[in-house]
C-alpha cells in the first residue's frame, strides 16, 4: 500500500501517537548529541543528522534488568520481568543502515533459545524507516550490499519529497495498522519528485572473497598492522547497529538486588579474561581480529548474514581512526 503524508500531518501523527501513550522514539538532540530517544513532542525531532548511537537500543537496551532477587533467611525469592510491560513503541526516522540491522539480529536472539527481552520488544515496536539523503565519506552502506533506500527491517518506509511531504510504503501489517489507525492524515500518493538520495561509497566489496580470505588468514601478520593502533575501548561496538554482545552482572547486596544485562564489547581486555588469569585473546590485535571475523565470517557461517550495515559510525567515533571500510576493501583486493 502506497500513501502520501505531508510534513504537518506527519508531526500531527507523532503528536497523536504520543498523546495515546505510545512511546515515540526518534532522533532528538540530547545535550548537544543527536540520539534516538523518546520524544515529548514532535518538535524535538531532528531529521538531518544520523544519531550517534544506533536504533538497536529500542530493542537491545544499553542496560536492562532481567531479574530481581531478595533474600529472607536462607531462602531467596526472585521476581521475573514481565515482558508484557515493555511499552508499545513507534521507532521513527530510522535510516536504512539502522533498520536493516534489525532483522539480522533476529537470527541470533532466536537461535534455539528465544530471548524474549529482545523479541517481545521487537514485536511491540513499529519501525518507520526514512530514506537517507545525507551521507559523508564514512558511510559505506552500498559497499556491503545495502542502499540509502533499502526497506529491509522497516514496517513503514518514508521517502522524503521536494516540499517536505513523504511517500509512505508499508511492508508489514504493523505498518498498515499504523496507517489505518490514522487514515485521516494520509492521502493518495501525488507525483512530487523525491529528494535525491545520498551517494555513499561507490564500489561494492566482494564479501564472499573477504570471507574466503578470513577463512584462511586467522594467523596473518597483517592483523598487527591493521589493529596495532587499537587502544581497546568499546566505542565502535556500542555505536554499531549490529553488535549484540552483552554482559550479565548482579548489582546490589546479598540481601537484595538486580541482575542486569548490559552492553559489552569484544574489544575490552576483560571480555575473555579467565579468573585464573589466562586470556585466550591477550593482545589487542587478536581482539580486533575477532571483531572483523565475527562481522564478516562467523555470523555468515552461523546465520548466513553479514553483521555490518555500513553506517560508518565506528569510523567516525574510533579514537585512533581505524577505518573498517579501508580494512575490508584492502582484504577484498588481496
Amino acid at each position, binding site marked *: 500500500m502506497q500513501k502520501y503524508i505531508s510534513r504537518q500531518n506527519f508531526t500531527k501523527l507523532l503528536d497523536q501517537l504520543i498523546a495515546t501513550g505510545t512511546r515515540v522514539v526518534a532522533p532528538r538532540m540530547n545535550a548537544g548529541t543527536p540520539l534516538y530517544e523518546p520524544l515529548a513532542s514532535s518538535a524535538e525531532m531532528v531529521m538531518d543528522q544520523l544519531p550517534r548511537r544506533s536504533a538497536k537500543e529500542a530493542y537491545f537496551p544499553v542496560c536492562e534488568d*532481567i*531479574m530481581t*532477587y531478595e*533474600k529472607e533467611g*536462607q*531462602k*531467596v525469592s*526472585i521476581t*521475573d*520481568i514481565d*515482558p508484557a510491560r515493555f511499552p508499545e513503541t513507534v521507532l521513527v526516522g530510522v535510516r536504512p543502515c539502522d533498520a536493516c540491522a534489525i532483522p539480522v539480529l533476529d537470527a*541470533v*536472539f532466536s*537461535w*534455539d*533459545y*528465544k*530471548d*524474549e*527481552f529482545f523479541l517481545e520488544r521487537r514485536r511491540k515496536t513499529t519501525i518507520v524507516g526514512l530514506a537517507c539523503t545525507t551521507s559523508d565519506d564514512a558511510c559505506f552502506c552500498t559497499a556491503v550490499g545495502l542502499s540509502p533506500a533499502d526497506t529491509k527491517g522497516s514496517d513503514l518506509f518514508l521517502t522524503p519529497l521536494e516540499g517536505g511531504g513523504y511517500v509512505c510504503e508499508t511492508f508489514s501489517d504493523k505498518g498498515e495498522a499504523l496507517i489505518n489507525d490514522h487514515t485521516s492524515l494520509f492521502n493518495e500518493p501525488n507525483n512530487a519528485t523525491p529528494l535525491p538520495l545520498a551517494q555513499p561509497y561507490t564500489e561494492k566489496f566482494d564479501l564472499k572473497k573477504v570471507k574466503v580470505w578470513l577463512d584462511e588468514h*586467522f*594467523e596473518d601478520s597483517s592483523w598487527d598492522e591493521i589493529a596495532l593502533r587499537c587502544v581497546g575501548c568499546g566505542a565502535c561496538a556500542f555505536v554499531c547497529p549490529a553488535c*549484540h*554482545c*552483552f*554482559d*550479565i*552482572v*548482579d548489582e*546490589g*547486596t*546479598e*540481601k537484595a*538486588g538486580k*541482575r542486569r*544485562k548490559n552492553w*559489552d564489547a*569484544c574489544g575490552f581486555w576483560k*571480555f*575473555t*579474561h*579467565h*579468573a*585464573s588469569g*589466562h586470556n*585466550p*585473546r591477550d593482545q589487542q590485535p*587478536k581482539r580486533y581480529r*575477532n571483531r572483523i*571475523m*565475527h562481522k564478516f*565470517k*562467523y555470523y555468515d*557461517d*552461523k546465520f548466513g548474514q553479514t553483521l555490518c550495515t555500513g553506517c560508518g559510525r565506528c569510523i567516525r567515533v574510533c579514537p585512533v581512526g581505524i577505518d573498517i571500510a579501508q580494512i575490508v576493501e584492502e582484504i577484498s583486493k588481496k
Partner: protein
Amino acid sequence: MSDHTNKNIYLPYMATVSEVIDETPDVRTLKLVFQDEQVRENFSFRAGQFAEYSAFGAGESTFCIASSPTRKGFIECCFRSVGRVTEALRRLEVGDTMGVRGPYGNSFPIEEFFGKNLLFVTGGIALPPLRTLIWNCLDWRDKFGDITIVYGARTESDLVYKRELQEWQERADVRLVKTVDPGGNGPEWDGKVGFVPTVLEEAAPSADSTIALVCGPPIMIKFTLPVLEKLGFTDDQVYTTLENRMKCGLGKCGRCNVGNVYVCKDGPVFTARQVKAMPLEF
C-alpha cells in the same frame, strides 16, 4: 535438552544446598536439590553438559554438572574459589539457596561408546567434567569394554573425589592409574609419581576400539594428545571438553567463541579432530 517453559531464558531454577564436601583446601563440591517439585521431577541432562550457577549478589559462574545423569533428584557442582562468584558460592552453607540455569551445551555421545573400551585421562580439577561420564558408564557397566582412568594432580591433597578414587581402585572392572606430579607424593602414597602424559605412556592402553576422554588445563592437553597419537588413537577416537569463559550459555552474548565455534552451543564436548580444526584461541 529440557525445553524452557518459562519465557525468561535467563531465569535460574532455585536449588537448596543439601551437602557441602571439601575436596581440597580451595576446591569444594556442592550437592544441590531443586526447590520446585516439578523441576526436581523432570530436570534431565546428559553427561558433559554444563550449567550457570548463580550466587545472588555476586553473579553467575560456569561449571559442568559433575553428578551422573543416572542419579536422580540432585545435581552436584565442583569449583575452585578464585573469583567473586566462586567465593560467594563458597560462603553458602547447607540449606542456603542457589540458582542453577541450564543444562546447556552438547554432551558426550555415550550411545556411540557402547561396546567400546574407555580411557579417561584428566588432571587436577578437570576430573568433574569426566566424573559425570565415569559414573554414568559405571551405572551401565555391562555396556562397555574395560575402563581405564588415568588421573593426576600436583600433590596428593590436590586430588578431588578422594573417596570415589578409593572406590574405583577397589572395583575389579575399573583400572585406576593415580599419579601426582614429581615431588607431590606423601610418605604413604600408593599411586604413581609423574606427569599425566608420561604416566599415560607407561600405562600404554591399547587403542583399538577404545575411546579416549581427555580433560585438563591447556598445557596438559597439549602434551597428552601427541601421546594418544603415539598409542594409535585417531582424532575421532579422542573427545575433550573445553572450559571457555562463558556468560549466557545460550549462544547470544558472544563471549565463548573459538573461531566460528560457540563453545556453549556447539560444545563444550568436541572431538580432537574438531579441536585441531579450531584456531588457537582457547
